[in-house]
């Protein structure tokens, strides 16, 4: 009798739940500003430290810009993940999420989207940073943006998967990098190569790498959508 007139489809509820979780995470960030006040400065600091390690020789720094950019993104991803799942571990939010009746796949997509939004903001700042500090003039804006989007999707999907896996463990902070970094190694390789191609104005090569990134992102998004339910159940 209380059944809704139109039963929303599975994918409909999934996306609605994802939007709810994403909204929650973004609101949390707007109020606490941990990513803006802590992770963002950390990412810029990493760029400065790279300059110390490699000597402020513009030639080397410009040449290594794609790799350094993505390494900085990777390190910041770890921090953003620890923040994102630290929030869930405290006060039993994971149980609350499970009891809320939200679609697990929706929770996964929402968490991943939250991390992706944070990462994209970070990438904008880091992009400005390498242009300013390393003197790397960007070319091929379409390829750069596409690479950022595809690589971020892959990082966010893998990160969310491993984030919830290691959530609530005492060794979470040390285990997460060990689990995640070797798996996202292809993202580092492909994104670096795509950026290098864009900076060298040889975009043709770069699109191949973009293809790899897109496949990686879609694959792990699919794995996350299917694997999240058993993961939430048992935690």
């Amino acid at each position: 009798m209380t059944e809704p007139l139109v039963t929303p489809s599975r994918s409909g509820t999934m996306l609605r739940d994802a939007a709810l979780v994403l909204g929650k995470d973004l609101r949390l960030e707007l109020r606490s500003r941990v990513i803006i006040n802590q992770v963002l400065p950390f990412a810029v600091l990493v760029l400065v430290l790279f300059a110390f390690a490699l000597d402020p020789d513009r030639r080397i720094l410009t040449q290594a810009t794609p790799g350094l950019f993505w390494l900085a993104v990777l390190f910041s991803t770890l921090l953003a993940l620890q923040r994102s799942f630290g929030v869930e571990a405290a006060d039993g939010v994971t149980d609350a999420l499970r009891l809320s009746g939200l679609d697990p796949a929706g929770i996964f997509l929402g968490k991943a989207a939250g991390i992706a939004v944070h990462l994209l903001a970070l990438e904008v700042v880091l992009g400005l940073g390498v242009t300013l500090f390393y003197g790397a003039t960007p070319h091929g804006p379409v390829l750069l943006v596409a690479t950022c989007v595809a690589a971020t999707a892959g990082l966010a999907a893998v990160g969310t998967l491993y984030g919830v896996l290691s959530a609530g463990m005492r060794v979470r902070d040390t285990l997460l990098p060990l689990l995640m970094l070797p798996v996202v190694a292809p993202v580092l390789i492909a994104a670096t190569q795509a950026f290098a191609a864009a900076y060298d104005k040889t975009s043709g090569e770069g699109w191949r790498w973009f293809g790899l990134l897109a496949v990686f992102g879609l694959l792990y998004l699919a794995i996350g959508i299917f694997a999240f339910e058993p993961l939430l159940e048992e935690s």
Partner: protein
Amino acid sequence: MNTDTKGPGSGAGLFRVYPGGTASRGSRTFGIVLAIATAVFLAFALLWSPPDSGANASENQMGEMVRIMYIHVPVANACYLAFFVTALGSVMYLWKKTDGWDLLAAASAEVGVVFTVLTLATGSIWGHIAWGTWWEWDARLTSTLLMLVVYLGYLALRRAILDPVVRAQRAAIVGLIAFANVPIVHYSVTWWRGLHQQATISRFDPTIDGLKLFSLLFGMLVGVGFYVWLMMHRFRLEYAEAKLESKGLDVALAERRAEAMADTAVDTTGGTLIGPKGTN
């Protein structure tokens, strides 16, 4: 009574916990056969098969160096087999939810890590002789190293979770992802190196025939034999550990209960509030 083992395929034999250790008559016989086979194999690999030189040599002309191939290839083969079994155990656990599959995946990952380290070590020794460097950023070496780290992470995750059900569930998912990741890493690393240099001379596939081919195939068989033998022991140990874990909990509960009973028995006159006084 515990001497009957029906071989690696039979659950009854494998699931039995032996009081004297992880060996049974079956695994002992298998071990002796394996030891003899290893001795014969080493004779083939090190003495009887010809060096890679002269008229029948392959294009790479590896000379005596070719002999490390007889160890390296079987060991690498066994590590892929081991990780395949881990993935299989993970899938089957997610499907059937029986502990045996989880234990199989865990045991196989551990044995696989040992074989991967041996693969990297023998590959590195070969590289030192062939290229003059212990490490080359070759596609195969690099992706094997990454695979090793992924499975070290798998084992670390297993150690970090105490609840057996949660551990099995999460490990199964990581075991699956780890296996799915192998081709992605291999593909991307090959592509990455391919852009900078063409195929290096790391290829271990010279055209071989006759005694050399026989030694290699025999070595593969011995490598798989070692994997099976190690797995028999590791699996039984894993199973015994799991039993001890659950038994340990029962024993601790019983001890605690006995303590509580003793306390109440002593404390009959005091009338304190501690202990389930008067309960059965």
